[in-house]
């Protein structure tokens, strides 16, 4: 890991954990965000999910659909790659 990248990783992880400790975000939201951080910087995995998250962020309207997408994402089991793929297809359709 490059120095800047490591700094970014450490800062982002601290920020996410701090938000959870101050109860700005829930424990589930913290776990999800930390997992995404590990996926992007350490494991460099699930690029399709990352593309989807970017698209979702651009189209976010705080609607009922957005709530469903968020609930689905928080419930994802990242150890089950097949389930992640299936859910991602459903989420793309929703978006």
């Amino acid at each position, binding site marked *: 890991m490059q120095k800047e990248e490591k700094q970014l990783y450490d800062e982002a*992880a601290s920020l996410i954990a701090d938000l959870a*400790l101050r109860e700005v975000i829930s424990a589930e939201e*913290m776990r999800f965000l930390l997992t995404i951080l590990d996926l992007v910087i350490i494991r460099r995995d699930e690029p399709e999910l990352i593309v989807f998250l970017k698209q979702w962020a651009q189209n976010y309207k705080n609607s009922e659909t957005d709530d469903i997408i968020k609930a689905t994402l928080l419930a994802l089991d990242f150890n089950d790659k097949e389930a992640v793929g299936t859910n991602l297809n459903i989420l793309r359709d929703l978006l």
Partner: protein
Amino acid sequence: MNLQFSEQITEEYLYDLESERRVLSSMLHNEDACIEAHNALISTDFYSPRNATIFALACSLYEREIHPTYVEIIKEGHGLGLLTHPRELEELKYIAEHYIDDENIKYWIKRVKDKARLRKFEAFLKENYQRLAEMPDQDVEQMLMAAEEQLTNLTALEIDDHVDSPAEMAALGYDEVERRFLRFKEIRELYKGVIPLDGLSTGFENLNHITLGYKAGDLIILGAQTGHGKTAFALHTARTIAVDHGKNILYLNTEMSRQQIALRWGSILSGIEHDRIRTGDINESELSLILNGYSRLRESGFYSYPCPNLTPEKTISIARKFKAQKNIEMMVVDYVGRMEKVDPRLSEWQILEQIVKTQKMLAQNLKIAVMCLVQLNPDGTLQGAKRMKNECDLMLKLAPIPREDREENEEIARYPDANYYLIIEKNRDGRSGVSIPIVFDLQKQSMRDAQRIDQR
């Protein structure tokens, strides 16, 4: 008496937070550091309770095969309610951020360990000072003896250095005899005379009977000439332990590729000739037989690590990792002659002796059985054999049955299918100098006990 403890002076010597942080930071960034620290330290070696918690979290993650990154520690700590205050997070962040990529992890671990021992020494001094102050008229001899015993326990580096008192030794002996007595009774009544093993099955009934299996802490040496079944013996052992009995075993191979090892399993588990599998000269029903064999391998406890540049240090590191993460009960090194030289100035027998000593210590420390395969000279002798024999618990040799034995030895004539001897050269716990006739099918890479046919 002018014995006063200066808190300010002593405290400086009793902990080293920088070393504690360095160990933790290395664990967060480097797997080798994880292996070393997991093996050498315990939570109470850390002075800072927060550091002790982070260490416990890192070890717990590592044992579940999750690398303890900063993020994983946060998730685990938060989930367990151990990271509840922003200040705790700040400390963890400091540790994660201040990683120095040095190779001195053993030095920092030793510093943490030494400080923990010093704290125990300080507690010993305080306790005895207190005793002296409170009971000035006590029996001096008794007081000094008690202090000496305490101090002796402190100077012992490991828990294993415990010295048995006569009473403890007697109790242990009685427990062992009673356990064996009850087991023998059980064998007679329940198992109709078949002796259950003390350790892992060897895959040969006759060898099981003599050795009672490969036991935790045992070093087993198996010697054979080139092309006379070293790897077949190792994989036969692996099959018995990992496939037939579902126990976890680590197999280190210095010669073969992953593909070669995988193909050998196809033959071992299907009983189809290795050459035919290698060339693909098989029919569809044989293919399905082979696939069936691989599905048994999938469910087994066989972990393979092909490593052409194996060194004694590397075996220690890998064994520790697999003990922590997979709880392996045995490790097989195939074979020690191919290990890299640690010191090029040493002669062959010195290197082998060094390797074998390391493996024996490893077996005892990790409480696993370790099997080392060695190559015999063309005349059947082994270089440095005497020294190796001293170190090991069980020394076996695999050799073809000579033609004259077949023709002239009446006992061997009762084993018409036998083609190899499994010779017990040394057996710390039982009979040695025994040659067990076995069947080695080179093509099918299989081994088994030879069938005895009694003459009428």
